[in-house]
């Protein structure tokens, strides 16, 4: 009887989350006539599509890795670095804002910074004589997108790792001190191993986050950078690939990759929670 209570929720999830997704997943394995096939998946293995997956993966890995490192550094600076306590709350609020500031506005902020007329570009040219263009830097590129993505990756890392850093008990540090460990030994043998599941898990989350991002990419690169979401977007809009079911396959590919990443995240989170009971 109690099950009736969650019926509306279950219905919603089913109709607007599960069914559409399943439709796509199943569609990836269906021929236009309705039979089962692996041809669509096979159709993914063309050079251009593989290239788009590959560049998507590269950007996601790069922005996730850099996001982890810089985010960890900033969170550690605030939680463990002996900075005034008043800095923490504003930083977390700002991280909340920045992690949601994606899409078109973000693209523009970075165009204004590193684009051809961007303030940093101009600054470097007039003050230091460094011409970014000559160095082959172009905002509409792998590095441009990666650096832009960091704007929401770093704050997301800060938001997730700050509670984990809080959970590092002061007594562990003190016990390690008494027992003769140096700071480096404490971090190597105690703190980092404890934090690793969370860090790795957040890396997976950031990866999935970057992989699925569409709006920023479109706004920044038009369609000149062929990452998977952009290709999928074009495909949905106008079947540019000439085979509707290929769209399904591409979407399925995306789900498979982000799904794996998130499974890793969940598994690692469960593991670290068990330790810290």
């Amino acid at each position, binding site marked *: 009887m109690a099950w009736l209570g969650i019926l509306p929720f279950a219905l919603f999830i089913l109709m607007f989350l599960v069914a559409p997704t399943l439709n796509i997943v199943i569609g990836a394995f269906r021929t236009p006539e309705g039979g089962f096939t692996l041809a669509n998946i096979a159709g993914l293995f063309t050079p251009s599509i593989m290239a788009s997956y590959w560049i998507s993966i590269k950007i996601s890995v790069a922005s996730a890795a850099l996001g982890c490192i810089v985010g960890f550094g900033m969170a550690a600076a605030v939680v463990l670095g002996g900075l005034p306590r008043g800095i923490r709350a504003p930083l977390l609020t700002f991280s909340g804002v920045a992690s949601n500031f994606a899409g078109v506005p973000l693209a523009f902020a970075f165009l204004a910074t590193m684009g051809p007329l961007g303030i940093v570009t101009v600054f470097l040219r007039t003050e230091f004589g460094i011409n970014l263009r000559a160095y082959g830097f172009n905002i509409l590129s792998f590095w441009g997108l990666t650096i832009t993505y960091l704007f929401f990756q770093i704050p997301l890392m800060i938001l997730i790792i700050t509670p984990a850093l809080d959970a590092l*008990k002061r*007594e*562990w540090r*003190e*016990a*390690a*001190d*008494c*027992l*003769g*460990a*140096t700071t480096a*030994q404490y971090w190597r*043998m*105690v703190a980092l*191993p*404890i934090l690793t599941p969370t860090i790795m898990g957040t890396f997976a989350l950031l990866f999935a986050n970057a992989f699925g991002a569409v709006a920023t990419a479109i706004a920044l690169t038009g369609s000149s950078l062929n990452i998977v979401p952009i290709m999928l977007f074009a495909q949905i809009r106008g079947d540019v690939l000439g085979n509707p079911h290929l769209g399904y396959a591409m979407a399925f590919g995306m789900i498979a990759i982000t799904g794996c990443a998130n499974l890793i995240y969940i598994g690692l989170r469960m593991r670290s929670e*068990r*330790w*810290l*009971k």
Partner: protein
Amino acid sequence: MTFLTLSNLEKSFGPTRVVKDFNLDVAAGEFISLLGPSGCGKTTVLRMVAGFEPADAGRIVIDGRDVAGLGPRQRDIGMVFQAYALFPNLTVAQNVGFGLKVKGTPASRIAARVEEMLTLIGLPEMGTRYPYQLSGGQQQRVALARALAPSPKVLLLDEPLSALDAKIRVSLRTQIREIQKQLGITTIFVTHDQEEALSLSDRIVVMNQGIAEQVGTPHEIYNAPRTGFVANFVGTLNTLEVEVLDPATGRIAVGDQQVTLGRPLPQGRITLGLRPEALRPDGAGEALTARVIGMDFLGSVFRLRVSMAGQVLAVDSFTTVGVSPPNIGDMVTLRLNTQAVLILEA
């Protein structure tokens, strides 16, 4: 020659003076308890000895070495925390061997020492377990083994039993004391539980608001408290206002009763301190009568609340099978152990 000397220690947090001119000499192998209520400064003193808090003033000398400029790492001390603080990502064996590993001890020596320590604390089979798989009492024993494995000069314990269940607390404290005696290690034990301090220590330092009120053996602290605070904090204390009739012989009047204490007393109205066991329903000693107004049965002891000359006293006696305690409203005769009477400041 004392092993550990604390001289004129001072510590303030902001405007609050938390430790005021604290002095203590500890002999080698001694078990000293710092006993006091929350906020009395006992943990701060311990942390200054450990090196976690720098002292504002004063000296700390361990085994002839002034440790003023040294961090916890160089002071050669072992510490056990209230929250166990075992490293959750390491096994029991790795935790215990941690202090040896960071110093670069060869693995075989570490393994032998870890086994020795695990046997000492009574958990020889638990080496491969993780802390989250152990009970609170087991974790604290492992924490003790971890602190002792590198053979430190001094062992510091910060309310190690407060987080445990009552039964475990009692059995573990005995175990801690036995291990300490066996190893002969100089130990400072911080607690707010007087029963722990009384049962374990060679000497107790009773602290209140940053100063050491009294230092003495458990017996001295209990039976000869020098200040009202010590008398009240340790054990139960009855107070009795009496009129001194003859200061030379110590004859006093309690209401309309009179007894002689047999020692000189100051003039006028004074306040006496009496432990509940100083008055007995039987035995020898000066006799006083009182009316029973309440009775609490505490198991091995029953505590009478009696009224004498308008004042209420607590009287403890052992429960004896076959002898029923007095009823409420009865008049009882109590024998006073005159040697156990304390004279408190007016």
